[in-house]
């Protein structure tokens, strides 16, 4: 028991590693702040482009989305970080993570948002357009608010996945939470920093999980 406490719940070790962990936490927050908006913006763009009546364009977009949903994110990240430099494109850890997350999570967000847009009845477009609203105003003020509302649980769920996935940045030496915890672990020869990192993830994500749970159990919306 004593051994367990001293190797997993060693407060002294965690305290000694606090600077590393704090920096890791800050970098993880930075990654979230980059990956989520990038993924959402890219996903929205893909979803809107797929509204085009041009069949071949829709097909190409579907292939693009399929491709990046099928590719394991870790493989994608390693390729961007270690493969692209062979083509003379060196993005560095942060740039590689940003590009890989844009490609991966925007594909998922795009599918969700497209389903949301599809769920808004045609009559909503028609009512708005027949009163003289432009297509853009109709989209922004009438269709998207309803679309987002209809797929909110899926959007939150995907965001949860994106946040968790930021830990793969550790493989490209991005000093985020997991990477720093492993550094601390190898220096102190003690697993407590990893436990601390896990706890931080838990505290960060638990509210989001609660929110998701509430959204999923919400009574069917009035719409």
């Amino acid at each position: 028991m004593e051994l367990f406490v001293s190797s997993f719940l060693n407060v002294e070790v965690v305290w000694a590693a606090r600077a590393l962990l704090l920096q890791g936490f800050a970098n993880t927050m930075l990654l979230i702040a980059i990956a989520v908006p990038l993924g959402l913006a890219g996903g929205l763009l893909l979803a809107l482009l797929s509204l085009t009546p041009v069949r071949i364009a829709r097909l190409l977009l579907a292939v693009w989305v399929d491709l990046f949903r099928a590719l394991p994110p870790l493989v994608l990240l390693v390729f961007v970080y270690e493969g692209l430099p062979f083509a003379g494109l060196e993005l560095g850890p942060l740039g590689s993570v940003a590009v890989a997350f844009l490609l991966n999570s925007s594909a998922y967000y795009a599918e969700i948002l497209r389903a949301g847009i599809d769920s808004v009845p045609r009559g909503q477009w028609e009512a708005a357009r027949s009163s003289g609203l432009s297509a853009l105003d109709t989209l922004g003020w009438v269709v998207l608010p309803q679309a987002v509302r209809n797929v909110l649980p899926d959007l939150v769920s995907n965001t949860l996945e994106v946040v968790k996935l930021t830990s793969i940045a550790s493989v490209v030496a991005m000093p985020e939470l997991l990477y720093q915890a492993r550094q601390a672990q190898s220096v102190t020869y003690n697993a407590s920093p990893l436990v601390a990192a896990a706890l931080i993830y838990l505290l960060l994500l638990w509210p989001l999980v609660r929110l998701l749970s509430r959204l999923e159990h919400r009574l069917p919306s009035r719409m």
Partner: protein
Amino acid sequence: MLSRPIIEARAIHKSFGPLKVLDGVDLVVAERELVFIIGPSGSGKSTLLRCLNRLEEPTSGHIVGDGIDVLARRTDINALRRRIGMVFQSFNLYPHMTALGNVAFALRRVVGLRRRDAEERARSALALVGLADKADAYPAQLSGGQQQRVAIARAVALEPRVMLFDEPTSALDPELVGSVLRVMRQLREGGMTMVVVSHEMEFARAAADRVLFMDGGRVIEQGPLDCLFGAPKSDRLRAFLRSLERH
């Protein structure tokens, strides 16, 4: 004709793939006229209505609305649609906005009024349809009849030159139909030009200047209601009138 036409549609054809929905329809509507369109389902009445503000693009034909070539590429369709109000069978209110928001929305985004002015005009449009006290209600909190009246207010608030009604009472419970027809009568008395696709024969009897009977994508007969109903010339109209009586 009472005066110059507000809508002049000539030789309108519309096909969906191999399906011919409109097969050379002419429709001329004079200012302050109420034209009532009847016909069996699938006769093309709704499609004709939807061509008038280009919700559907006719395959061929010519439409002049309020002096403007509706189908011309360079026509600012949004500016034109503002002057052609439309009311739908399924109301199509924006569920995430209050009744007031529904009516004020285009006033702000299309007409460009400031919030206060838009809401003032929206309130008077809601008062016109008898729903001044429901301004803050969301569509889901309103009955079907009330929702349709908000939809009428939403169209009227833009001060259109003509209003198109696409089966405005078909989705309503019978006891709610009256309130919507009353508002339409009131609009009519205010001199609004209207094109109404509907099965409400009582309303047609009371308010229509002219009735068009459509079948198979064509106008089969037209004229004052008494002439059409009293002395139908075509077999198809006779059959249609018999089918109405059975209800």
